[in-house]
């Protein structure tokens, strides 16, 4: 029976052959594999690589004569990558947490420096940390916070209604310079793609923060978990450069 099928020339033992043929057609085969395929299927572990966070350290706290340096360093950001990009944005409308619709172009048209991140309210792992970082940044800026804009876009707009975003904003103590946005799913996806943060299933999302000094400046992209100190430092670099005309 099996010989009639067109197979390549590899010799297969019958049990393995049957495994290949009997792969669960009804179950996993029809499911598009999620982007975290390899991770999701490993036995739940502690660190995939226990030393990963020691590599690519962007902070300078790992002093050779401080025995606790690497512990302290690891407690800070696990390292992030910085790059600069021009992102042409789509002509879509988004809705703020008070239900007011605004063209995206207008949302990002401010002369003030802008911080952007992407969250959703039922996200359990990355978003509380990223939103907490924004909250910490807000506190660190103090009165200076009125000189910036902070934008958080929901990547689950169908669930994240303005009411849910308001509750989330209140949970983290967001002040007036910090807005949360939702919108039509198709429009939000276009925004995500424009900023190159779209990863399909929202559970595949990664921690990315963007900042821009002004409307004519490029977007600074921060991939990875940046602490509030990291964001503050990047912000100072940008605004110093802006002030000195670079």
């Amino acid at each position, binding site marked *: 029976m099996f010989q009639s099928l067109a197979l390549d020339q590899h010799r297969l033992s019958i049990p393995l052959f049957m495994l290949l043929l009997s792969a669960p057609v009804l179950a996993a085969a029809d499911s598009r594999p999620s982007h975290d395929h390899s991770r999701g299927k490993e036995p739940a*572990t502690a660190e995939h690589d226990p030393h990963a966070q020691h590599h690519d350290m962007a902070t300078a706290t790992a002093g050779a004569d401080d025995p606790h340096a690497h512990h302290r360093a690891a407690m*800070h950001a696990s390292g992030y990558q910085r790059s600069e990009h021009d992102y042409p944005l789509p002509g879509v409308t988004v809705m703020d947490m008070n*239900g007011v619709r605004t063209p995206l172009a207008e949302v990002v048209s401010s002369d003030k420096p802008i911080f952007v991140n992407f969250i959703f309210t039922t996200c359990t*792992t990355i978003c509380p940390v990223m939103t907490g970082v924004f909250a910490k940044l807000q506190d660190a800026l103090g009165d200076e916070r009125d000189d910036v804009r902070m934008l958080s876009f929901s990547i689950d707009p169908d669930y994240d209604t303005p009411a849910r975003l308001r509750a989330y904003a209140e949970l983290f103590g967001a002040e007036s310079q910090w807005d949360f946005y939702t919108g039509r799913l198709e429009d939000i996806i276009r925004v995500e793609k424009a900023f190159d943060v779209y990863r399909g299933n929202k559970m595949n999302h*990664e921690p990315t923060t963007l900042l821009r000094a002004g409307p004519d400046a490029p977007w600074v992209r921060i991939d990875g978990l940046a602490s*509030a100190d990291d964001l503050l430092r990047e912000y100072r670099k940008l605004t110093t450069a802006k002030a000195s005309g670079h």
Partner: protein
Amino acid sequence: MLRVDGGVPAGTALTAAGRWLLWALALSAATAQPALGGGDAASTPVERGRRMYQQGILPSGDAMTGVVLGQVELSGQQVICSYCHRRSGLGASEGQDVVPAVTGDILYAPLRLPTSKPPLPPALRPAYDDASLKRAIRDGIGADGEPLSALMPRYALSESDLGDLVAYLRVLDSRPDPGVDDTEINFATIVPDSVDAGAAEAYLAVFDAFLQQKNAETRNEPRRAAQAPWHRAWSLEAYRRWRLHRWDLQGPPSTWQAQLLRHYREQPVFAVLGGVGPGVDWRPIHEFCDAARLPCLFPTTDLPVADETSFYNLYLSRGMALEADAVAANLPQNDLRPTQVVQVYDPADDRSRVAASHLEKSLSSSGIGLRAVPVGAGAAATGASAAATGLGGRVAAALATDAPTALVLWLAAQPAGKLLRQLPPVPRVVAVYLSGTLWEGSWDHIPEQWRPRSRFVWTRALPAELPQLLRRSTGWLRAKKSYDPAHQRLQADAYFLLKIVGGALSVNRGFFVRDFLIERIERDVDNAIYTGVYPRVSLAPGQRFVSREALIAKVTDSGAMAAVTEWSNPERR
């Protein structure tokens, strides 16, 4: 045996019957601890630890706080252990970040870590003990002496509080839940006797065909798992033969919880797959599932319980409540801006009644006047002629106002058509809203003069889109000689839920834990290729309805049903 993770999920409204159930199940399953503590629910270390783990509340009643990234202090809801490590304790992944399992049996044993650097052998994470586990939670140092991920909060807890949390983690385990053994997994589906026999048959035919095929393809995997290399065992260990038990429900819904308990005691099942009850108020079943901590997955009902604090009940759509919300959301978008609504409903039909009551609630603070006219009631009005007390007369009377009015008919095609024929098409009735769920007939029932103003509300895809959406299931069912075009929606719902559950179980890594099944489904629905009769499905941790959207459509001059609005969530107004 029942998982020893303490009382009832927060927010569950238990009826007296439900409370009795919980005790009955706890006793019958002979657990080590009663599921509900008497008196103070948090009086043992395990129960106090459970409250910390699941709700982020300290024994003192304060919210827990933790520090991430060395400096960001998060508190309360933002640092609840179960949010990341999940209620099952089996962890999760998001993007590139893996949240490890923290069940006691996994923590207190060495763990083989996969290596991404072959040919190096895998590393072993040493077993935790109480002291090193407390150190991990408080200081973020792992069993191997290395710092834990920057995402893991460091919790400044007292020794006593740490003791409670660790006590809970010790009893949290990954052993299989009832209903599954080494070779078989048992499921049930629910069939209330009020449901049409043909509908039940069409629904169950999908299950029969699915199980036959699945079991035919599940052959030697469990044996192979025993001999597999360790890094392959996880995929093979997921296989079991599926057995489906039909749980019939007879008589009044007040007796259903006792019947469900009896069914369960005859044969415990791992989960309940669906259930056929479009017009059935699902609440009694919903409460049973919460009390029994039994996943009840995607029944076909237009009357789900809207309570999203239920952990164990997952639904397809909000049904009639969603239709009512869609009508309420559409009213202000109507060019002619109705300021009054007259709705007609059938008190004897649960779906009709619930829709009307939900619309009334939705509009209560909108400033839009609402009048409700029940079908059949009011016939005892004294001294009035038959014509005036007939439904047509009563609706006409309700419409006797100058204000622009929307008429909402929570009725099937025939009675709706009959009523509309009795009503003069006065211009002040600017729109007639009709229920896509209740209609069940052709659009011809709408008299010509009412057609331009008629608006259907749909909580599923329009009929013209169904062939494309259902192509997979239709083709497969045809091949299995089980396709029933008269029950397209039921069969599509069954096919969808079986695909989702089958997929989630196949990647459960051998952990047959009920909570974990739900957690996997929460993640995997967004990847679904087949979405049944819904244009879009999505879930996330804590969400319980895969489809939250609706649209408004009208019948065009050529007799086709065409969308007037987008498919969107009426809550986002």
